[in-house]
């Protein structure tokens, strides 16, 4: 049983825009690349070229079809990684203290040297955001690229999680959700950002921005004036053309 620190003023996390995410998996693979080479054990792959390839990923994109009551079905791309919850059940369930929430910025991490790979944290996480690495036998999870965001060996503009830096559509945003004036907090306020499964009581720091309504082009009668015919036949059209041309700058012959 591990204790959570008192809530930090700084709450680092991600804001993910479901309106813009095209489901390209760029974040998934960039995360895999950075975190294989960096923090802790590499993210291994079993049966890498075989019948049942299965590797460790800290971030995955799922796609869900949504059928509105009226209109066409829609497809929503849903990237999911650790939400760095304020009341993180994965931390409190950890028997060795390996799983912890950083007191300074709220990032939830696993101290791999203390992890016994019991898997209780993965069981406790309602989001399925932790994966036990089959090769190393330690629990892996999103670190919010803690080894990038403060890294003085990186140019300042690159001190953000790998998934955010690489996202081609700009659907991922990183910042301090504890600061109501931060860009990410403003974005959440403007766009109605929401918590994933708030009923779980985990108080996730990461937020999602909802897709905008789709297939809502105005009924044609609103737009009809834009297509009012200029003439009833071809002859009339040429008449209109001559009139329209003479009204243009330099039109008078």
């Amino acid at each position, binding site marked *: 049983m591990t204790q959570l*620190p008192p809530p930090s003023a700084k709450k680092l996390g991600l804001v993910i825009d479901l*309106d813009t995410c*095209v489901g*390209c*998996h*760029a974040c*998934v*693979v*960039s995360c895999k*690349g*950075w975190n294989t*080479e*960096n923090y802790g*054990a590499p993210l291994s*792959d*079993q*049966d*890498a*070229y*075989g*019948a049942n*390839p299965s*590797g460790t990923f800290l971030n995955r994109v799922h*796609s869900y*079809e949504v059928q509105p009551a009226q209109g*066409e*079905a*829609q497809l929503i791309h849903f990237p999911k990684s650790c939400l760095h919850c304020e009341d993180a059940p994965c931390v409190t369930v950890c028997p060795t*203290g390996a799983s*912890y929430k950083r*007191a*300074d910025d709220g990032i939830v991490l696993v101290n791999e040297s203390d992890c016994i790979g019991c898997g209780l944290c993965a069981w406790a996480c309602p989001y399925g955001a932790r994966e036990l690495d089959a090769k190393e036998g330690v629990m892996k999870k999103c670190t919010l690229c*803690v*080894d990038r965001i403060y*890294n*003085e060996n990186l140019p300042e*503009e690159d001190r953000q999680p790998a998934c955010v*830096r*690489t996202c*081609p*559509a*700009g*659907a991922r945003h990183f910042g301090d959700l504890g600061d109501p004036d931060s860009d990410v907090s403003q974005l959440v306020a403007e766009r109605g950002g929401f918590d994933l499964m708030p009923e779980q009581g985990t108080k996730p720091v990461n937020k999602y921005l909802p897709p*905008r309504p*789709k297939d*809502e*082009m*105005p009924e044609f009668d609103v*737009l*009809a004036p*834009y*297509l009012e015919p200029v003439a009833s036949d*071809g002859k009339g*059209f*040429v008449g209109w*053309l001559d009139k*329209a*041309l003479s009204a*243009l700058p330099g*039109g008078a012959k």
Partner: protein
Amino acid sequence: MSLDQPQLDLSPKVSDEVRKTTCYMCACRCGINVHMKDGKVAYIEGNKDHPVNQGVLCAKGSAGIMQHNAPSRLRAPLKRVGERGSGEFEEISWDEALELAVSWLKPIRETAPEKLAFFTGRDQSQSFTGLWAQSYGTPNFAAHGGFCSVNMAAAGIYTMGGAFWEFGQPDWDRTKMLMIFGVAEDHDSNPIKMGIGKIKKRGAKLIGVNPIRTGYNAVADEWVGITPGTDGLFILSLIHCLMKAGKIDLDYLARFTNASVLINEDPGSEQYGLFIRDENGQPQVIDRRTGELAAWNGQGVEPDLSATYRNAGVTHRPVFHLMADRYLSDEYAPENVAETCGLTPERIRAIAAELARVAFDEAIELDRAWTDFRGKKHDKMIGRPVSFHAMRGISAHSNGFQTCRALHTLQIILGSVETPGGMRFKPPYPKPATAHPKPHGKVTPGAALDGPHLGYTHGPEDLIIDNEGNPKRIDKAYSWDNPMSAHGLMHMVISNAYAGDPYKIETLFMYMANMSWNSSMNTSGVMKMLTDKDESGEYVIPRIIYSDAYSSEMVAYADLILPDTTYLERHDCISLLDRPICEADGVADAIRWPVVEPDRNVRGFQSVLCDLGARLGMPGFVNEDGSAKYKDYADYITNHIRRPGVGPLAGFRGEDGQKSGRGEVNPNQIQAYIDNGGFWIEHVPENAAYYKPFSNEYQDWAVEMGFYDAVQPYIFQLYVEPLRKFQLAAEGVGQRQPPEHLRERIKTTMDPLPIWYLPFEDGHVDPVEYPIHALTQRPMAMYHSWGTQNAWLRQIHGHNPLYVPTKIWEANGFKDGDWAKVTSAHGSIVVPVAHQASLNSSTIWTWNAIGKRKGAWALDENAPEATKGFLLNHLIHELLPPKGDGLRWANSDPITGQAAWFDLRVKIEKSDVPNEAQPALPPIKSPVGKGPKELGWKVGQ
């Protein structure tokens, strides 16, 4: 931090060194930072300074480390020792390999160079490989454009001097509405994703026209789930609505398009339907200042869009009148097209109205003065902020060329090409068809071809045919079968060579083209053609040389394998002479360089061609004393001169590296690129940023940069006169006449104004028996067989169910886990199905080229790619089924020869669950063994 929390090193060393080069995980050509540790590749990220990707990188790019280290990499030159197709090879030395190649190629060159067919697949060095083929002397060279998107490229060039992707892009920073048609999720993928992000941030509208709602179409504000092959009809209906309502940019049409050019309307004339021209050959307009004839480009001329010209009892009208005659017709009224398109008339009208509203009510004015080619000064740049983008979805149909032309016509009547908020060309484009070379095909044994192979025809006189009208090229490009086949027809090479039609060849030489698998229609048939022997026991296609970096399905079908490097081990130039990486605001090119040296006995293919060219004594590849001219490809990149001052790379030219565009050779040019992050960019002057084809400011800059040698302003060709010339020939005019069986088709399809006709397969296959359209798409995280089956990416796209819409799902009583038999007029496959509601109700689809042959790519034979993965290619034939006229018609666009993959019609029925997807082909022996069971990739400690 409280004391009981671990102390972390928050600033660990990231890498020893960053080496900046160009990605090759697909054709986007993004800039990448390769982080090196202990001399090995540790991590790959996007290069923030690079014009294409500005720091972002897709899933493929980030997985490059798995491609570079893939177990499927070939290790040494291979000589076939078993039967073709068996995969039995022995490793040989490079000297032996090259001498063997020379022993095949030298006699052919000296006697009949056309007996070599050299096709280079998904090559990004066509200006070099084309030069090699030209110097060798064979007319039989092309890359993969013919089975990819030549309709898009050719329609764009003929109509407006450029198309999408390498040619042009939406004005991402200003557009207020973007409409995308059939956009695959791979081409230009990072720039499009970045652009969609930008316009979403601004709240601009995105309309996705695609039978399948995934990817970009999933985030579109409006999804138009059109029936495949009907986009052209939908677009012509939008044109109908907009013209009828006068919601068109008349000033733009008059000045900057040939809508004002007069057409000869005398049916008795041999010039019928051609432009009225003056004694200098210039097309004529009526000048509004005088009411008299004037050259289209005369100084001060104000072209009249409406006035006609009466001569010798005949009234000749401008193109715009012909457009009005055609597009105002009720034939294109929404009510009359909606059902065919799978849409409602109200939806079509609403979209047309929304285009009109945004284009004209939300017009943009930039306070930037510019001067047009007639000397008229404009104090503003006026923009119609609607933009469009399209790709293979509309291109890969037998009506694709005309559909792409229709789309450009829609853009142009709205005044939204090369204006703020619309579509913008990327230098060195725009470049009209007349500024491109014409095709060449004159063969002289032992000598070079008479000019570049590929180009643009402007009439029957430019066809590559003999005196009897027979094709001179093995792929029948530039013949009456497909007179404007600007990229050649790679998909016809093997079947034509096998049939000896138009003639037999000796050696087939290919690069990066997986012809025995996903790059061919009729995959099983192609395997048979590659392995079949004649009565004397010789292979019908006698010799096959193939170059690839990986153990692809094609390797087993070659006699000699020249193993290529990975993209991190090689030199390349992404050249302005080829497919550049420019942006609308800048001209740019880039290099690849060996950020690591190969650890295998492999060589970059282009360096091998330099060597082969020298061994064959080919002009341009040897010095006067017969010695090799280029040590390797890097030497060529640095020292080759194409035109005075113009070489493969435009940056850092001149002895001191200070010149851009034009300049002498700089011996240190490649190092200058490396020092600059792997690329070079020069920005377009602000007053030349729009109206590029018409702008004096742009034209002067383009000459200065060396894109061309003299200014060449032009106007957009809504009416494409070369099409009319072919049509006239089909009507009986002129010496060069098409064969009788093609006359009617040429008359119908080669219309100088965009038309729509049913995809050809609909006329050969019973639409009642085969009521379903079947498509493929490329996933964003996987690039067909370009590289290997990547260990990370295959966990995202390891198998490919056939997606089935609700109506068909329910009608067949499908359940999760079911399999189905899918049958076309050509063949059947048995494959796993999955339900997708967000899909056109008569369309099924799957991801392209996930299915793999057992034994290829160093995969286990039980890999899901080989047991459940499948190709639709088995259902598609390069010829349409017979229809009783005694002829076999190509499954291609009749104008360009583009492979009509997406015309496919099928039927579907529930099947028993087989052991594996059918047809199941026997395994091929792997020349590289199998990949490791487990990966835990970490190069630094």
